[in-house]
């Protein structure tokens, strides 16, 4: 499989006042198309900065970053916005849904910045909501949805533009353990059935064990990079958990 992400000799420095801080120190790695990668590391290890660069929200100080064959190091603001729009889906810890806006319109948001017609936007948003198991909830506002449902709306939003990769920053950080596994089940299905490359930052080794590959950061350097021998199956784990009412019915 060809690499969807190629990073070579990546360096990122920040100026903290007059003092330069080396956040990422000469990092090189590749991520294969269709992989499911978890990135772990303590706070301050540089993994958030790496995620920002992977997400084309930030530019490296030096080194090269190729996303889907495109070198993004020299692109301007608007070109980066277009790359984010076309190739990347974001999932955040705090969901970042627009308040007082229906689930369907939240999912439509990335399509607002394409040429899609209103009808096409709606159709694709509904399809994405269906894919995360939220069919029938399109008119609910975030305040009417549970945390797990809100995160699924956010995943639908990340999906709606057919991205090459989905970047998830602590996607289960604000969720209880059962809901977290449900989210992992969705990630695994999208990864395996849709072939979307998943990259996920997490603190939780349990969550990381659902991925195929685990990259560890410390002090701005790659500390470990290993394939997970036997990734856990989220669906199986869910079955073994004590029976609980399916979440969709809880807050109806």
């Amino acid at each position, binding site marked *: 499989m060809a690499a969807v992400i190629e990073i070579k000799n990546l360096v990122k420095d920040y100026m903290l006042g007059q003092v330069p801080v080396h956040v990422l120190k000469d990092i090189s790695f590749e991520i294969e198309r269709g992989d499911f990668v978890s990135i772990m590391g303590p706070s301050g290890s540089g993994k958030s900065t790496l995620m920002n660069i992977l997400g084309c*929200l930030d530019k490296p100080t030096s080194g090269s970053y190729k996303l889907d064959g495109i070198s993004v190091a020299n692109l301007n603001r608007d070109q980066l916005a277009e790359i984010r*729009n076309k190739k990347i889906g974001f999932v*955040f810890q705090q969901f970042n849904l627009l308040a*007082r806006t229906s689930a369907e319109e939240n999912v439509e*948001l990335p399509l*607002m*910045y394409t040429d899609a017609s209103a009808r096409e936007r709606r159709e694709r948003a509904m399809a994405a909501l269906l894919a995360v198991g939220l069919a029938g909830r399109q008119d609910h506002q975030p305040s009417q949805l549970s945390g797990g449902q809100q995160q699924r709306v956010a995943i639908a939003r990340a999906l709606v533009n057919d991205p090459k990769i989905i970047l998830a920053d602590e996607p289960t950080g604000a969720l209880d353990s059962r809901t977290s596994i449900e989210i992992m089940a969705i990630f695994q299905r999208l990864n395996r059935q849709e072939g979307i490359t998943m990259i996920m930052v997490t603190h939780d080794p349990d969550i990381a064990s659902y991925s195929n590959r685990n990259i560890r950061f410390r002090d701005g350097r790659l500390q470990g990079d290993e394939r997970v021998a036997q990734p856990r199956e989220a669906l199986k784990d869910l079955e073994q958990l004590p029976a609980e009412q399916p979440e969709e019915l809880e807050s109806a």
Partner: protein
Amino acid sequence: MNKLVASMRIALRALQVNRTRSALTMLGIIIGVAAVIAMVGVGAGATARIQAQIQSIGSNLIMVTAGSISSNGVRLGSGAGVTLTEDDANAIATECPSVSAVSPTVRGGVQVVFGNNNWATNAQGVTPDYMTIRDATMMYGQFFTADDVDAAAKVAVLGETVAQTLFGDADPTGQAVIIKNVPFTVAGVLTPKGQSPTGQDQDDVILLPISTAMQKVLGANKANAKAVGSLMVQAIGPQAMDQALQEVTDLLRERHKILPGMDDDFTARNLTEVYAAQESSAQVMSILLGAIASVSLIVGGIGIMNIMLVSVTERTREIGLRQAVGAKTRDILSQFLVEAVTLSLLGGIIGIIVGLAASLLISHFAQWSTKVSLLSVLMAFVFSALVGVFFGYYPARKAAFLDPIEALRYE
């Protein structure tokens, strides 16, 4: 287009969420636009009134009055001289190419009697050219003719005030009135003209054939039987005024044998020009009122800028999210600009309605004529949109150039 509709929807939604705040922000623009519309309306009303008065004195009018004379060191008022004559009038009419009509005029106070009513008024002896020169029309009957002037017929044309006083609302045509003990037949009544620009009642007048007036009512001047008090001269067009004035002056100097370097023994004045000065001062007032009102529009615009800055700060995370999912600089810029322009345009439309209502109320209660033109409404509309763009640009730019990472992290 598709995108513009989408940003309009986003903007309307954002404004709905903070309804009270949006309404209060709009209030600034509403007051500003309403003030501009009403004030310009008041100014335009005043200008229109003055224009109507200028129209009423006649178009392209040059007044020639006999000069003052001094005898034994006592200077008499203008018109006291006997230098202007009917022959001068005829000469001007035939020899000045820029002049279309001339009416010699004599005037004097008379008592007019009908039955047991009587009224003191001003009698003017004129020729039928008076009608065209003063743009006069008849309400009842006919003006007297050149034949009446030649025959010194005892016919009179009444101003509306005189007719009203003597005859009430009835048509007095054909009735007999007595002026200075001479019986006259009423030939007709002039359509009322209202006040002159100097505030005189232009309808309190009786017009007589000049010959009759000089021979039977006012009496001819003893020094010169043909002398008249003044000449009303009409130029062929507004552009010919200066030319006509020059021709009349040259002709009269020649006829009166005034040597170069000596003063005129008459005064020729372009009346329209005199009153046009009043008109322009009314226009200056109109502009001044509009300018003062525009200050409140600018204050309203600053209110919009203020609220948009607050809105940008409040919605920093939303902006960061939009940037993350692919909004470009101009997408964010247009979103917030559309929001500001929507605020100011909505305010502008409401302000136009309030301003129209206010000027109607002013006309109704203050008896002050107002005139709101379509142009001022359009200007107010466009100007309020411009206020939105101008004062919305800075906050929108601030939003568009936020760093997406910082914005997403903003609490």
